[in-house]
């Protein structure tokens, strides 16, 4: 019995009137945990009762502590009839189970009833005494920290990133049990809420156990979803990334932000001393002994190890001496194997993270995704959810093989989702194939990932966009060019990813939200036939979504997509596809070609004219967009791009071979890999529609930007005002004779209008950016489309922006010049993505690494690896490209910290007591997160039988969502927090029956409760710190870079 849970009921306020006669209430409270229940006294005749109860003590297993929620029920005492329930509060006590989080839960909680909504508030204090029995500790998984944040949480550092953890539990849905016919809707809703709460707890505990098995202590990027499979049951599943995290000392955690960039710059040379050793260890081959190289005494090993480094770290290392490609093949494979050993032991080398410690991501291959259509059947034995497990295993296997085909050994930015309609279920998974630096994945690399990464990364600035696969054997003919940053490695013409823009990536101009929207009608069908119809439609949908994305990207004059999320939703008679991503212009990738329109009948004069008119419109739009998003890449003449590359003879050969390869597969070129002329053939009205729809997307009004990633590329001077919101629209398709076109148009209008409304509503915040715009589409009924958007609007300072971009440019100029020098000095050196050389390291080292590297790029370029074919039933891959990363030191520091700096001044504005901020982002602009208090994962059901009286569907849902926000805020405040970060509304299932005056809605939200401190306040604190404590702080700054 390792835990004692103590609960005290203090008071209530604003209770509803339960006794009409007296206009008062005789309230008492039941406190239930597991099977034990305590009651307070009845507090007679008051709407603001003061119970001030004793401490109710529950002695419980820690397993129960993890699984069970604390259930508090407020009732109205009735002498003659049954006591009436006023409402309930469920409190997840998980945050109290690990030492670094909250120590007490204390505060006002809204009393919630599934029929009436919030009915007053109750003040509760909860504490847990855990017995310090470490063995017991291990058997449950108390102590494993959970984070929804999909990056390493701000006040921690990752020692090891272990990898993928997943689990699912199934149960019967209480709504579909026989007993539901005889019980009240309230009882049924409460049973459901409680069950899901229990299942979530169980799931979290099980995942925790897996993490402990992997010797981790935390789960980052934890995403838990539930599938309402109707008759066949209820599935709660979760995925996440197991890590071993170390808490940074609090000063170290926030001081880097206080350092001015220039300071950091200056500090670099001083850090030369400690760095060398980390450098040597950093590149560590998977060997354990590398671990210990952290001590300063080892610094001398540096030079010798630098070559090791390359050898072990970069897939291409092996080719060092191998002059030309082909023989290198097996060699390379061998090396890859070696570097991957850490990953290969794992069943699924997946990471749910979308942002990484610098140096972690070596190359990005492109988006991989897989879908599968399944028929649901009743889950007969909830204790063995094998079918569901097998389904997901199958999909993950597919993802893994796609990644392999892209020459990648890992998948990052990984996520899974489902769409269910009746008994058909589409399972989807997607991620970004990537090559990772294995150092972070090793057991025993205690020195942490932070220090080494910076140096390794420096020469590899543009590394992540360099192709990880071999160009002769590409799965589809992307057009490769030499990287526009380093000019040495090949990059694709476009790059699609599901991750956030890496902090060290350099972009030109600003980014923007790009959406592809698509509907496809399908015949109503049953079971097998339905599933087959859907699977047949899927590839076409994927293809069209992809085409749309590509067109829109080019129309914006951009060359890369980040945060790509493609959602396919299934309904009775249609499929909907919605892809959202943030387009950017990566400096490392070639300038995108325009879009050309070709007509089918070139001889028809008027038609020709029409075409040329369209063409002009498109060209104008591109030009306008370039101006709007400030995309003005320096014109680089072709010759220059090619020229610095050594071994010209070989290069030309390579180029030739490249073109050959694309010729061979030209018929399969579904990815529109042509570089300059992206031809749209207008051969029928459909195509015409497509072109029109391309041009109908209206850019946001001036002063507004939008993106679906964490932060907007090109904006980094956020001010402190944030506004998180959820907007929901349900549209009824009126006409019966629906065609794909009208459907597409309707859907497109729905989304566009929704965005316009958001811009209008938030106009007072201009200049501002909508970040993390997250669209979800569902088809609740035959002719209903529901679109739910959650995002956060953040204001930024227009004025400062100019300055920062300037400095950015300056920096990159500096950088460029450094690059050039290096090039001149060491003509043979290659810009290896392998974290090889350090610009600040002595020349000698350069020589060494250069020698070890020479010839590699050629080899790599020649390397033929497997790739994916684009369209497969139920499985789709996508594209890749590359980026230049001119990693200057300041740039290498996490972007967010850079932002904090600039934001610091106006930050202090509002710090009202009791305000709880909510944001889907992992950070709060102008503030530093000082503590993570635990995960918030809440599930609510709301039902009404008086829909009209509650203001119709809009009134009902508006009130409910406001209540959900309130309950989340109350829980965070009770934990002692003042914000929720990484907030996400994972589900919002809305059902209505206006004829019966009824509606029901289920909402599932999650996020991380945190304490943040305004940067301005922080500066005061840090100014008061003695010099001594500044020391770790500085190194913290270093680490962060």
């Amino acid at each position: 019995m390792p835990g004692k849970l103590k609960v005290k009921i203090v008071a209530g306020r604003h209770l509803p009137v339960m006794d009409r006669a007296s206009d008062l209430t005789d309230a008492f409270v039941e406190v239930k945990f597991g099977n034990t229940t305590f009651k307070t006294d009845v507090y007679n005749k008051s709407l603001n009762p003061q119970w001030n109860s004793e401490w109710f003590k529950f002695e419980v297993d820690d397993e129960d502590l993890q699984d069970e929620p604390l259930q508090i029920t407020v009732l109205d005492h009735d002498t003659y009839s049954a006591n009436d329930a006023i409402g309930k509060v469920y409190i997840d006590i998980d945050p109290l189970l690990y030492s670094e989080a909250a120590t007490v839960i204390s505060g006002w909680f809204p009393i919630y009833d599934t029929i009436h909504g919030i009915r007053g508030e109750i003040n509760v204090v909860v504490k847990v005494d855990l017995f310090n029995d470490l063995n017991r500790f291990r058997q449950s998984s108390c102590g494993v920290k959970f984070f929804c944040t999909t990056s390493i949480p701000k006040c921690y550092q990752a020692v090891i990133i272990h990898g993928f953890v997943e689990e699912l539990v199934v149960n019967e849905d209480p709504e579909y049990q026989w007993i539901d016919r005889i019980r009240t809707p309230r009882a049924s809703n409460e049973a459901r809420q409680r069950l899901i709460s229990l299942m979530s707890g169980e799931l979290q505990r099980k995942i925790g156990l897996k993490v402990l098995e992997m010797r981790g202590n935390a789960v980052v990027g934890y995403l838990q979803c539930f599938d309402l499979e109707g008759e066949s049951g209820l599935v709660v599943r979760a995925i996440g990334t197991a890590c071993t995290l170390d808490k940074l000392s609090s000063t170290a955690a926030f001081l880097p932000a206080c350092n001015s960039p220039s300071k950091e710059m200056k500090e670099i040379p001083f850090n030369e001393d400690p760095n060398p050793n980390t450098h040597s260890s950093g590149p560590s081959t998977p060997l354990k002994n590398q671990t210990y190289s952290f001590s300063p005494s080892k610094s001398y090993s540096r030079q010798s190890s630098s070559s090791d480094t390359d050898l072990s770290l970069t897939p291409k290392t092996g080719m060092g001496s191998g002059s030309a490609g082909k023989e290198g093949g097996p060699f390379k494979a061998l090396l890859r194997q070696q570097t991957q050993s850490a990953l290969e032991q794992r069943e699924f080398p997946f990471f749910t993270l979308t942002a990484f410690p610098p140096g972690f991501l070596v190359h990005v291959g492109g988006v991989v995704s897989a879908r599968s259509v399944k028929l649901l059947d009743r889950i007969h034995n909830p204790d063995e959810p094998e079918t569901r497990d097998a389904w997901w295993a199958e999909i993950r296997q597919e993802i893994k093989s796609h990644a392999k085909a892209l020459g990648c050994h890992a998948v990052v930015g990984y996520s899974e989702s489902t769409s269910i309609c009746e008994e058909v279920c589409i399972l989807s998974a997607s991620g970004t194939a990537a090559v990772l630096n294995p150092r972070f994945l090793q057991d025993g690399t205690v020195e942490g990932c932070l220090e080494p990464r910076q140096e390794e990364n420096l020469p590899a600035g543009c590394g992540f966009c360099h192709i990880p696969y071999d160009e002769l054997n590409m799965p589809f003919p992307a057009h490769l060019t030499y990287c526009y940053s380093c000019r040495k490695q090949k990059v694709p013409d476009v790059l699609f990813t599901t991750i956030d823009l890496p902090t060290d990536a350099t972009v030109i101009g600003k980014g923007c939200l790009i959406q592809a929207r698509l509907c496809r009608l399908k015949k109503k069908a049953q079971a097998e036939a339905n599933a087959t119809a859907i699977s047949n439609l899927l590839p076409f949908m994927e293809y069209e979504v992809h085409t749309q994305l590509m067109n829109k990207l080019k129309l914006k004059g951009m060359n890369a997509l980040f945060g790509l999320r493609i959602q396919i939703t299934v309904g009775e008679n249609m499929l909907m596809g919605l892809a959202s991503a943030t387009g950017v212009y990566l400096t490392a990738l070639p300038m995108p070609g325009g879009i050309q329109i070709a007509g089918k009948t070139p001889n028809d004069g008027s038609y020709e004219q029409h075409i040329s008119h369209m063409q002009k419109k498109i060209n104008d739009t591109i030009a306008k967009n370039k101006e709007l998003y400030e995309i003005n890449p320096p014109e680089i003449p072709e010759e220059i791009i090619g020229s610095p590359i050594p071994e010209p003879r070989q290069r030309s050969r390579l180029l030739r071979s490249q073109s050959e390869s694309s010729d061979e597969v030209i018929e399969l070129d579904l990815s529109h890999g042509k570089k300059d002329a992206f031809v749209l053939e207008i051969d029928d009205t459909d195509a015409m529609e497509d072109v029109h729809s391309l041009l109908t997307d209206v850019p946001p009004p001036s002063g507004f930007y939008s993106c679906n990633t964490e932060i907007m590329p090109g904006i980094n001077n956020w001010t402190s005002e944030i506004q998180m919101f959820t907007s929901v629209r349900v549209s009824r398709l009126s006409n019966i004779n629906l065609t794909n076109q009208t459907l597409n148009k309707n859907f497109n209008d729905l989304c566009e209008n929704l965005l316009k409304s958001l811009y209008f509503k938030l106009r007072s915040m201009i200049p501002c950016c909508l970040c993390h715009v997250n669209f979800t589409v569902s088809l609740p009924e035959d002719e209903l489309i529901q679109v739910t958007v959650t995002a956060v609007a953040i204001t930024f300072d227009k004025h400062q922006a100019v300055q920062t971009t300037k400095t950015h440019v300056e920096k990159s100029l500096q950088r460029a010049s450094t690059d050039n020098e290096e090039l001149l000095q060491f003509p043979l050196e290659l810009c290896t993505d392998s974290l090889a050389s350090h610009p600040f390291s002595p020349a000698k080292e350069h020589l060494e690494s250069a020698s070890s590297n020479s010839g590699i790029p050629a080899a790599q370029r020649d390397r033929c690896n497997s790739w994916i074919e684009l369209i497969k039933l139920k499985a789709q891959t996508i594209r890749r490209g590359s980026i230049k990363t001119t990693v200057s030191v300041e740039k290498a520091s996490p972007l967010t910290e850079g932002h904090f700096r600039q934001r610091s001044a106006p930050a202090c504005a509002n710090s009202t007591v009791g305000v709880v901020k909510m944001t889907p982002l992992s950070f709060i602009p102008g503030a530093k997160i000082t503590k993570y208090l635990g995960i918030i994962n809440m599930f609510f059901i709301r039902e009404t039988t008086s829909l009209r009286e509650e203001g119709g569907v809009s009134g009902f849902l508006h009130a409910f969502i406001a209540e959900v926000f309130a309950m989340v805020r109350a829980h965070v405040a009770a934990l002692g927090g003042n914000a929720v970060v990484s907030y996400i509304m994972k589900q919002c299932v809305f059902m209505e029956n206006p004829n019966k005056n009824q509606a029901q809605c289920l909402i599932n939200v999650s996020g991380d409760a945190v304490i943040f401190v305004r940067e301005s306040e922080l500066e005061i604190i840090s100014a008061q710190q003695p010099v001594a404590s500044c020391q770790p702080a500085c190194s913290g700054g270093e680490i962060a870079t």
Partner: protein
Amino acid sequence: MTNELDIFVGNTTLIDEDVYRLWLDGYSVNDAVGLRVRSGILEQTGATAGVLQSDTMDHYRTFHMLERLLHTPPKLLHQLVFQIPPSRQALLIERYYAFDEAFVREVLGKKLSKGTKKDLDDISTKTGVTLKSCRRQFDNFKRVFKVVEEMRGSLAGNIQQHFLLSDRLARDYAAVVFFANNRFETGKKKLQYLTFGDLAFCAELMIQNWTPGAVDSQVDDMDVDLDKEFLQDLKELKVLVADKDLLDLHKSLVCTALRGKLSVFPEMEANFKNLSRGLVNIASKLTHTKDVRDLFVDLVEKFIEPCRSDRWPLNDVRLFLNQYSASVHSLDGFRHQALWDRYMVTLRSCLLRMYHD
């Protein structure tokens, strides 16, 4: 394709001041949209009418949900559902409780009952304030009245504490409550020229000086009712006009002091007895509820109108009233100096305030 459901919920509740005003003014969503369109907002923002419609609906829905809380403003501060910055909360409350001059003049002094509520239709037509807005304002009066009616302590203070209004607005409400409680007649045609400000000014003085609270701060209803004892005592003043000697002496004192100082001296001299009788009779009749109600009518009929018909300048009225009150202290036979001051100080200020066109 129609939007069946269309909502926007922010973590911080968005309040659009312009839409709030339209809502408070009682416009329907469609009228509000029309007015917003006319304000040129579409051109400014590039939005479409559909966007405006949706935005307006959304705000109206939010206000509708907030209205329940606005009925008890402290609840708005403590509730958890809507996260609203304090400055915005204050704005919401202040605007919700603000009222139209035209409307308040119609109901001032009327019983805040169902009967009056039924008359709101007419008031709406007469004042041009929408019925919805009239209802809100009327209900506000009634709500405030009910809460503070039987409370101890300062009337304005109680209102401020329970409705979190600004000082100014709380005092206005105090006047409304005071008038409603004493049912002063303010609707007569000859009183129409008086603004709410005039009447609120008088109410405030009367609350300060003529209620039980003026002498004892611990009694119930201290600020809402007139001090019964005081009204009873006022009968004693009658001697000032009933005693012919006293009246003559009073007149001569005033005339001596003012000779050469008033532009309307002859008129004053001629009218002195009438005016004095008027003022003293008003005082002595205040024991009757009916006469209390007619206080303002009487003041206008007995004092303001005669002066006005003789075209007294305001300054002359001031000089006269000062002298008229002060001279009583020199009347040796008169023993109710304190009572006289309590009555006259208030009355003098009220009359001066009310003396305009």
